[in-house]
């Protein structure tokens, strides 16, 4: 017979290893980053002097940072917007189909599960000026061949296209799951009242789906915000700095040039951005009431 005390602490003992791992990997990096963002820090230095707000000043005065912020914002907005619109459209259509829904659903899951590195290289190959199959199709439709990834105007759109290809299915599959969970009655009532299909979509579907829409947008936004793998494989931040996102400059400036203090300052700014986003969204959706109660 175990003592009462041991029984009470049982749940906490079981939890401890996981929680400790999470704490170590979450708190330590955060504290460390905050500290070295005030230092001129490089792993090869013997001493890493504290420099106050210098890293942040350098950051906010540098074109590289503002450019990265802009590129990231454009990338996140364009990809999430396109993925949402196309994904929602396809989900609505797919929800009405009677034949082939299942097979379509399982096929469309493939892009989501693929390694972004593979996707990046695949698209780099297809976008190649001489032997890229996308350029072949473009030529067929009367456009001229373009070296998408080294073109100042097309490099970022090419990255957006790649991301849209990979993640539109993600939006679609989540929104489809939401559509399938909607009750029929409001639509029947709206039909009797003579509502058009756009009206019932706008005033019944959208409000009822709002929680799922928020979740889908949130997940895509945080993932688009961290884009790194595909950039590494496709453009390495170039041409010039046209595709240098925040994640990319942390790697490029911070890790490659061993300017860790500067990189850490960017990381702190990124953290502030994502944390404010998540606090905003978490106010809109209730994680526990609807999601985990059946």
């Amino acid at each position: 017979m175990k003592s009462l005390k041991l029984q009470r602490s049982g749940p906490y003992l079981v939890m401890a290893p996981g929680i400790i791992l999470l704490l170590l990997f979450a708190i330590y990096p955060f504290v460390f980053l905050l500290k070295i963002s005030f230092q001129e820090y490089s792993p090869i230095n013997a001493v890493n002097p504290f420099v106050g707000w210098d890293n942040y000043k350098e950051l906010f005065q540098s074109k590289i940072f503002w450019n990265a912020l802009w590129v990231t914002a454009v990338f996140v907005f364009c990809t999430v917007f396109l993925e949402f619109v196309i994904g929602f459209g396809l989900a609505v259509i797919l929800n009405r189909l009677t034949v082939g829904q299942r097979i379509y659903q399982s096929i469309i899951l493939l892009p989501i599960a693929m390694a972004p590195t593979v996707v990046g290289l695949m698209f780099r190959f297809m976008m190649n000026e001489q032997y890229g199959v996308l350029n072949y199709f473009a030529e067929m439709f009367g456009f001229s061949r373009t070296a998408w990834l080294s073109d100042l105007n097309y490099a970022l759109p090419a990255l957006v296209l790649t991301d849209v290809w990979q993640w539109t299915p993600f939006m679609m599959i989540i929104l489809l799951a939401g559509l399938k969970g909607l009750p029929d009655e409001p639509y029947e009532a709206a039909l009797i009242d003579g509502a058009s299909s756009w009206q019932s979509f706008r005033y019944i579907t959208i409000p009822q789906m709002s929680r799922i829409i928020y979740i889908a947008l949130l997940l895509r936004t945080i993932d688009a915000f961290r884009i790194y793998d595909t950039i590494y494989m496709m453009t390495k931040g170039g041409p010039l700095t046209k595709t240098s996102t925040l994640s990319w400059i942390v790697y490029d400036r911070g890790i490659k040039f061993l300017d860790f203090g500067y990189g850490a300052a960017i990381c702190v700014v990124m953290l502030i951005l994502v944390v404010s986003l998540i606090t905003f969204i978490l106010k809109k959706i209730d994680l526990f009431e609807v999601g985990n109660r059946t």
Partner: protein
Amino acid sequence: MNASKNKSIVTLQYVIVLVAMICFIFPIFWMFVTSLKNQTDAFSTIPKWSFAVTWENYSTVLFDRGFLTYLMNSFIVSAVSTVFAVILGIGIAYPFARYGLKGTENVLTWILTLRIIPPIVTILPIYLLFSKLGLLDSYTALILMYTFMNLPLTTWLLYGFFKDVPGEIEESALVDGNNRFSAFFRVILPIVGPGLVSAGLLSFIFAWNEFLFANILSGPNVRTAPVGLNEYATPVSVLWGQIAAAGTMIIIPIAIITLILQRKMVRGLTMGAVKG
């Protein structure tokens, strides 16, 4: 009149879906086709639709260029970290789901925010820490990292699955003479079994595909498949046939898992927030 209009709308819908499907499949199909071509066929300006199929790219990549080792490394790291993530995830999720402990929602929300932190933010300090501990280029480093990366996911998924099990089931098991441990292992675990499998498979996918941590923390000893893939794409010579072969081999296990999971993927991809 109305009937024919309806019919044409339905046809249009099928056409749109079909076109979309082709768009989403074509790049994967094209990579596979390229992996079967020899160097000259892969590098033609006008795509060759009929060509002599060769498996040479696969054998070269696997045996001459060490890709087999990279795949093994990837498998070891992904599988071990998945097991850890699931076990530790059960440890966190079950007490929270069953005992309604104080602060459950706060802790779980905190765990969720860990999923939101961009990985590039974690990697700077971790890189320095691991290099001090002499853990760079070791299985341990990647396994620890991936366990951490997947633990929020497994915790949240398993929390949802445990919540779905009615409390009475455990109580009646206790009445039948089980203690808490045997009740959990004999009664609860079998019920959430399928949930455990899907949480595990998803963690496996994420670890298998991961590149940023692997690229920075691994060296020649534990290079994973996505990092190895990157090696074949040097600016000097890009051997697309071999890259395509390596890429195909990376996605084959993932494609199989996806086909197993099907709609269960939805629940996993949304951390359990949306049930597929």
